[in-house]
């Protein structure tokens, strides 16, 4: 049986650490790699796994994730293929999709959500789909048991924090104003931001954007319930074409170790 999102966070909390949420792009380096990569992340210690459904115009992403999406699409990866592959994955940790609004809108919002649920996907992160624009989708999502993951940014207003009060899953906190991508410096304002969020919402709070070393993950894990690692992981996959899964696994393990020794 696969854990739910809240079970996954609960387990980590029990272990007195933040949950580790690595991100990979479906179809990168190829769709065939998806299964072994997910297994490797799980083996490396992922608590949840974010799978990116590539979009042609990923305007919230930095160069590494843009490149991964572009290559995946250039290889001809289709949304239906991703659903099919994901459905066949036997993993115990929850899977979340990250994609952009147009692939969802185009497939049909209800259909995309239903297909997600059928493939075992428990949540959707859609960086260009603000909370207020997705009210209707929320209903379907709720009825399907798929969490529409709310995003919070350093610029977010209290009104937004109130709006997402009843969201399911977890809060995706964007640690910086900017796009995804490995950064050498952490934003030290993220602690206060997480505290601000906690005053309004009671689901777990994960932090992403720019976390690229175990040390940064450890620091973030001190304030947040979950730590999302995207570009740094995809870069490792990119740079180790011979053995993407092996290198992904040891990369993730280093993060898990860091989170455990907080």
């Amino acid at each position, binding site marked *: 049986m696969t854990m739910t999102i809240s079970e996954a966070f609960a387990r980590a909390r029990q272990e007195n650490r933040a949950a580790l949420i690595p991100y990979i792009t479906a179809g990168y380096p190829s769709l065939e790699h998806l299964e072994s990569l997910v297994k490797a992340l799980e083996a490396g210690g992922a608590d949840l796994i974010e799978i990116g459904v590539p979009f042609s115009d990923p305007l919230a992403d930095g160069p590494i994730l843009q490149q991964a999406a572009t290559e995946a699409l250039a290889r001809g990866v289709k949304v239906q293929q991703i659903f099919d592959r994901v459905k066949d994955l036997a993993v115990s940790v929850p899977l979340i999709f990250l994609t952009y609004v147009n692939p969802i809108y185009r497939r049909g919002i209800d259909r995309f959500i239903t297909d997600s649920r059928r493939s075992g996907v428990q949540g959707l992160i859609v960086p260009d789909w603000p909370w207020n624009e997705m009210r209707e989708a929320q209903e379907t999502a709720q009825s399907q048991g798929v969490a529409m993951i709310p*995003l919070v940014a350093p*610029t977010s207003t209290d009104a*937004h924090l109130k709006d997402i009060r009843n969201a399911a899953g977890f809060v995706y906190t964007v640690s910086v*104003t900017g796009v995804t991508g490995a950064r050498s410096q952490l934003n030290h304002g993220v602690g206060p931001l997480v505290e601000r969020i906690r005053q309004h919402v009671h689901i777990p709070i994960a932090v992403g954007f720019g976390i690229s070393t175990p040390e940064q993950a450890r620091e973030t894990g001190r304030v947040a319930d979950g730590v999302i690692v995207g570009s740094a992981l995809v870069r490792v996959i990119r740079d180790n074409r011979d053995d993407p899964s092996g290198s992904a696994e040891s990369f993730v393990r280093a993060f898990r170790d860091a989170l455990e020794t907080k």
Partner: protein
Amino acid sequence: MAMMKSVPDARGRFGPFGGQYVPETLMPVLDSLTAAYREAKVDRTFHQEWMGLLKEYVGRPTALRQAFRLSEQLGFAVYLKREDLNHTGAHKINNTMGQVLLAKRMGKHRIIAETGAGQHGVATATAAALFGLHAEIYMGEEDVKRQALNVYRMKLMGAEVHTVHSGTRTLKDATNEAIRDWVTNVRDTFYVIGSVVGPHPYPMMVRDFQSIIGKEARRQFRQLTDGLPSHIVAPVGGGSNAMGIFYAFRNDPVSLVGIEAAGDGVDTGRHAATITKAERGILHGSLSYLLQDEDGQIQPAHSISAGLDYPGVGPEHAYFHDLGRARYESITDRQALLAFHQLAEWEGIIPALESAHAVAWVIQEREALQRLDAKVLINLSGRGDKDVDAVAAYEEGI
């Protein structure tokens, strides 16, 4: 004719179209932009400053006159609204003067913009220079190569030009990159969008700034002919010049016709006829029509005219199309080129290739328009000097 509903609604919707599809990071700035714009709109000082600049700097009102030789050739009256006479050579500056004034009012010191052909980039760099603000312009690598003159013009005016190497390396990707910059530098940066596209309030705001075209044209046309045109024809890229001239006539008994770029032909896959295809989708902040595949991946657009070479279109045009308030037709590269030559020879006006699409449609429809005894007003959105090299190259290539 019933009055049209006032759109967009408070959530930035033109019927089902529009909205605000951007990262959460940008939502607060869209709210404050909306608020600042609403204030500015009713502020006499702001309006006077903007109108003063349009008159004394941009050169408005632009001329409107019957094109007598063209009219004679076609057998019905054709009038031209001369946006090509604006400072920097196209309608784009009506909008950039407005947005940069607003940026100043909001205390933002850094201006960014996307550009395709470079016209909007030049118009933004111009407005920024005039107010002593720093401008950075995103432009696809392909366009930087094709439009070297405009790149140089921007630099001359002190703007930084960032070459975008991702994706199709054209306008779509320049826009992605501009949005990425905006997300990153949201606190001190004003993003000047170049057409009636993007998240609310942009489609509304750009329409309002461009609607000066139609306001002038309506007054001028009535003065000239004591009546209204039967048809208004304008090229549609993002749709700002078209909406700019349509808007003042929306409640008049006037046919509004938007002309998209059919490129090699709408069935070849190499075109930019977004509304002709009419597939709904979401890109760059709003729901509208889009060129896309079955997965919602955006398809590259194609047009000989760099300013029409965009896979989306403004949401208000999608709305007008849905309502049937405007018709949208398309014209191929070849037809546009022919019209480019014809207008130059008959009227001594070298039109922008974008504008040549509108002229071409009027020529194509001559028989029908003759039967209607039409009085056609074409929005000549820009001058063609920027296109002369491309045309020469294209024609040598044929």
